[in-house]
């Protein structure tokens, strides 16, 4: 058990190193002068040289790499070209809205996706199965902003049930503002989870121990609820961890549609402004968050499921 945990921790550190190094390699590979980009076209040569020294741009690739690692280790992500604020501070104040959005989307996709998958698996080959399969196909094929705009048009403009965007004032108002963006973000998740549950539960239901239980007169509801579901939901937990990347990627689009003041909208603005430190900072912080979350998912599974140890 302890060896497995230690190995997992070691792997996490390797992954973190790889991500940081890959980003560094990509930044170094582009032929642009960050110091000039940061200071603008009218900066004096002395100012440019000073900035170069601060960011180690006057050194070779190895020197810059060491400098980059040292700055990251101190939590220093540089400063935004546009607002001149520290990138770390910008991300820190945008992280919570995105975390709320992502959490709401995960909860929503599990709450909708799992029951749909169970329904399809229990009624295999009949119309509920076909309906769920078709719905899942649609959910996996629709671009997120098209889903978002349809939801916005129907539930915000036509019916007026939900606000058209914004962050809300906390409490119920926040929740009210959260429904449409989280629903949009959850569309892919609902489809994926429904399909996964249908497939895994379907397989489990074909197994011998289920047939034995059925032969012994266990009711269908008990069969699914107590015997099959437990073994079928394992892959789902792994999938939620793996999907975090897709989720944060989708958040960029969803936050833009619903004016949700999160990391994704900051990233979008940074892309429009060609604000490289912010783009790099957001990508690194999101990648680290996902890697750590996946570590936690694995550790929780190790604790719950003895077969994995």
């Amino acid at each position, binding site marked *: 058990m302890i060896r497995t945990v230690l190995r997992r921790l070691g792997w996490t550190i*390797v*992954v973190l190193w*790889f*991500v940081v190094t*890959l*980003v560094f390699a*990509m*930044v170094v*590979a*582009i*032929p*642009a002068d960050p110091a000039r980009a940061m200071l603008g076209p009218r900066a004096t040569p002395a100012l440019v040289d000073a900035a170069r020294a601060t960011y180690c741009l006057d050194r070779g690739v190895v020197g810059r790499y060491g400098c980059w690692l040292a700055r990251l280790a101190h939590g220093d992500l540089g400063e935004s070209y546009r607002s001149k604020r520290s990138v770390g501070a910008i991300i820190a104040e945008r992280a919570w809205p995105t975390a709320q959005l992502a959490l709401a989307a995960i909860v929503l996709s599990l709450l909708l996706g799992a029951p749909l998958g169970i329904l399809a698996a229990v009624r*295999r*080959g009949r119309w509920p199965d076909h309906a769920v399969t078709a719905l899942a*196909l*649609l959910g*996996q*094929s*629709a*671009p*997120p*902003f*098209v889903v978002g*705009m349809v939801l916005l*048009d129907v539930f915000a*403009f036509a019916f007026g049930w939900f606000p058209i965007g914004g962050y809300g004032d906390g409490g119920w108002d926040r929740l009210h503002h959260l429904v449409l963006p989280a629903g949009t973000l959850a569309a892919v998740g609902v489809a994926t989870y429904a399909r996964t549950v249908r497939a895994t539960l379907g397989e489990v239901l074909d197994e011998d121990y289920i047939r034995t239980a059925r032969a012994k007169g266990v009711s269908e509801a008990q069969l699914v609820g107590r015997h099959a579901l437990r073994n079928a939901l394992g892959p789902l937990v792994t999938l939620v961890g793996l999907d*975090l*990347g*897709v989720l*944060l*990627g*989708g958040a*960029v*689009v969803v936050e*833009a549609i619903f004016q949700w003041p999160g990391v994704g909208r900051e*990233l*979008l603005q940074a*892309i*429009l402004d*060609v604000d*490289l430190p912010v*783009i*790099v900072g*957001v*990508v690194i912080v*999101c*990648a680290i968050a*996902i*890697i750590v979350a*996946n570590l936690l998912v694995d550790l929780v599974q190790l604790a719950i499921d003895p077969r994995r140890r």
Partner: protein
Amino acid sequence: MSAHTHAKLADALRRGRSALWIGALLAIAIVAIGVLGPLLVGDPLARDLDGGLTALGAPRGPGVAGLLGTDDLGRDVLARVIGGAGTSLAIAGAATAIALVLGGIVGLTAGHAGGRVDRVLMRGVDLVLAFPALLLAILLAALLRESALARSSVPVALTLGLVGWTTTARVLRDAARTLARAEHVVAARALGASPGRIVVRHVLPNVAGVLVVLTALGFAQNLLAESALSFVGLGPPPPAPTWGRMLFEGRAYYRTAPHLIVAPGLAILLSVVAFHLLAEGVRARAAGPR
């Protein structure tokens, strides 16, 4: 075999087949539109300055000017959706090809060589997989935008290809791993065939079905990813009309002129559904009755 299982089996078979046929027909039609599109409609960049816009300068609705109306610059939306098909499909196709070649080389090498080479290569794949794909694509596209390639569609295709090869590598590695122990491969090796010959003559033909599924799924994924990149402003540069770019440009008008979103949105949705169905159908057929 009970009547119930029998019915279920027949049903599964039927479904796999109809998915395959619908998917294949749709996919062929879409590719045909992409290739022949420019011949069928007018210039997607032509602006109709007299009839293309309302007196207030707003886009015209469907049916009023052209079958699908006009966009904010008075350009025919039908011409742009069909003219844009070629660019969108070409980008997704190029990205898929890059991913297939990269993933194929890594996966087949790992699966065929086995042992330490396999472990090292697959650990590498795990590393790349740990990086969130869309964020990696955004970063890569944002950086490539600064480079000399910026005025073309190359950065987008390259980005998606470099990000999307890992699934291919994994699946092909598993297939090659199984095949490495298959009798005909063992026999070929015993007869002195070189590793390259074994891969090309004995392994590749046997993974053809898997390759078709991977290609169709990757293609669908890349179509979606191209539109996502375009939506955040990192797609192919204007004026080339791609479906993603049309959504990006139309989103400001979606209340007053929803056709600017609906037309390219439906084009993407239909294409992605087509290639998903194709993949599903081929997979169901390859898996056989279960």
